């Protein structure tokens, strides 16, 4: 939805469960995106719990976890959502005079719009929802309700296992061949699959060093750093400001991705594009690790058309630096807008290789994977 379209926004507001308070000082170029207003919603939503009948409790719980940021990361959010749907399907019973496939699709649709109100969907979640709706629509009419529910639950389990858990193992087994002794590996932020690669390489006894590059405001790299150091891996921690300084000693750059689009563009945590570009300028190979279920047939050329806005307050407030109060009442100044983007788009020129569950591919082969993946989904 275009959020700069006044009429449609009005309509959506009437339907909404989550209280949509108007964000102030919107950045002109990003008016079409859903504005960040999450801070005030959490207590409001919590108090509504008993009034909202149609939302299944497990769905509600996951929605609140998205809202509070407790569950994050492409895979984490997708698995949490699917497990919530699984619970909801388990407790589902078809209302009288309705058919399961139609009513359940509508139900899933309402859950999804609840999730969207909590936080815009990631592409991985979108693909998983498409899979589930497709499975519901394709249920044979002859199945009884309990059989249909069992079949859907096992479909969800299979999706989580095949497309996420096993896919990650396959990616690790491919990526490990690119880690040699005496390598210096750089990673940005915190990607679950990159973490698995580094840990596995360490278990195999490869002698390498890791540089964790991090950025404000989320500082997700610190969690990764703590886990890697605990495993005994030699690490360096730096912020993205120093990436051009540190890059000359790096031999490989490993990045995670939120999605890979069909022109080879990598859609990932904001800052990834800068890291990839600096690595490219230094002639260092950039390896992007991403499960095939996150691939999308859309094409995107910039980070403006589709993106997610984060809380602008977290860039104005720096914890532990009360003396930096220059932006204290920034919202009162009409001429000042703060922009906290969540994702950016890395052009395929800066990517040397994409590691997926289908093997190691050049970015030009993404459309092939999207095509083959679709085919597989149709047959399954």
């Amino acid at each position, binding site marked *: 939805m275009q959020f700069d379209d006044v009429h449609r926004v009005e309509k959506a507001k009437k339907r909404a469960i989550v209280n949509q308070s108007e964000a102030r000082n919107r950045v002109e170029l990003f008016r079409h995106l859903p504005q960040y207003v999450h801070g005030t919603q959490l207590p409001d939503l919590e108090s509504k719990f008993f009034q909202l009948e149609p939302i299944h409790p497990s769905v509600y719980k996951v929605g609140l976890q998205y809202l509070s940021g407790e569950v994050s990361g492409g895979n984490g959010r997708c698995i949490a959502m699917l497990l919530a749907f699984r619970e909801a399907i388990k407790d589902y019973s078809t209302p009288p005079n309705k058919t399961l496939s139609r009513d359940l699709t509508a139900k899933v649709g309402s859950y999804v719009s609840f999730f969207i109100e909590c936080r815009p969907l990631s592409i991985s979640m979108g693909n998983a929802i498409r899979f589930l709706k497709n499975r519901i629509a394709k249920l044979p009419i002859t199945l009884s309700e309990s059989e249909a529910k069992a079949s859907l639950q096992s479909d969800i389990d299979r999706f989580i296992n095949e497309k996420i858990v096993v896919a990650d193992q396959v990616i690790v087994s491919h990526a490990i061949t*690119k880690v040699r002794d005496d390598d210096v590996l750089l990673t940005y932020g915190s990607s679950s699959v990159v973490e698995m690669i580094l840990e596995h390489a360490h278990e195999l006894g490869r002698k390498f060093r890791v540089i964790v590059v991090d950025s404000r405001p989320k500082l997700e790299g610190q969690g990764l750093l703590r886990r890697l150091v605990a495993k005994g891996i030699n690490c360096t921690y730096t912020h993205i400001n120093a990436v051009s300084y540190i890059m000359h000693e790096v031999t490989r750059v490993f990045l995670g991705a939120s999605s890979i689009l069909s022109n080879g563009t990598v859609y990932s945590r904001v800052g990834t594009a800068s890291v990839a570009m600096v690595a490219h300028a230094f002639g260092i190979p950039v*390896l992007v690790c991403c499960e095939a279920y996150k691939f999308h047939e859309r094409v995107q050329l910039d980070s403006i058309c589709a993106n997610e806005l984060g809380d602008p307050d977290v860039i104005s407030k720096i914890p532990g630096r009360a003396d930096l109060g220059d932006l204290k009442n920034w919202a009162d100044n009409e001429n000042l807008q703060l922009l906290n983007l969540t994702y950016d788009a890395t052009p395929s020129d800066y990517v040397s*290789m994409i590691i997926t569950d289908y093997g190691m591919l050049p970015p030009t082969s993404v459309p092939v994977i999207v095509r083959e993946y679709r085919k597989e989904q149709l047959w399954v």
Partner: protein
Amino acid sequence: MELDAAQNPNPEPPISAYYQTRAEHHAVVSSDWLDHAAAAASLPDAHADADAAPPPSPGSNGGGVIEEFNFWRRKPEAAEAVAAIMALAAVIRSSRATTMMELEIELKKASDKLKSWDATSISLSAACDLFMRFVTRTSHLEHEKFDAAKSRLIERGEKFGEISLKARKTIAMLSQDFISDGCTMLVHGYSRVVLEILKLAASNRKLFRVLCTEGRPDRTGLRMSNELAALGIPVKVLIDSAVAYSMDEVDMVFVGADGVVESGGIINMMGTYQIALVAHSMNKPLYVAAESYKFARLYPLDQKDMTPAHRPIDFGVPIPAGVEVETSARDYTPPQYLTLLLTDLGVLTPSVVSDELIQLYL
């Protein structure tokens, strides 16, 4: 294993058997350069006598595959990969297996044996993998009777062998559109596919000129220029370091490939990368002629990211003690420096290589 040691011309790992075989087949030692030139004029194929020996009857044990492989390999016209394909096809034919599973295991063993025979040869392992995929791909084989399934495998194996044998001719035909009258082309080292292309172009009465690099260390370029001159094509030999100097008079560059990798780049004889860089910076098209059995599921990220293949280099004078010699036999050319790949699957852009590989291995 003892048998392997006896057959492999160079069992010691540091020296690549693949490049040694190539050197034996294609190199020209400077002392007999003139004799060779004279011989080439009278006898078109000095190695033709190898054809006289009958193929050994392969046993069902793994040793047979190596014998069969060596029989095919000795012919300088047959690529090592085609020899492997023929040998594997022979394994199916002579197999005494009674179930599909047994046959597949036997085939797998033979293929692994071939691959381990020379780990440095990319086309050998690629051809073995591709043969296995091509022959055993469809799953409905399991529902057939064993004899019917086996004869189908034999049929497919032979078909694959036939395609591979014909590949060079197909490529030569496809590439004729790229050669226009009056053009000058640069070739690097000795490549049988490139020679086939130029031969066909010459027989089509195209008028063109060829610049041949010397192709150190085994000087395969001299052999190339020798054969081209015998065909009446104007040819000029350059030392490898004169490529940039001569590039402005070149219209296009033709190279072969030892292996085509998943990125669409190629692994080829040392020097290809720098020729590609020079051609790219001077905006000259570079065409790679490669048979599809050289498509390998490899993805080197840089020059050092490959199984090392070494060969001895003769500098003519003794190397002073304490001086290291770079003996690597091949380099990797990334896809952005290649214009087109001329293969038996058609004329491809580098990015299509990975499409073909995905479809075959998915």
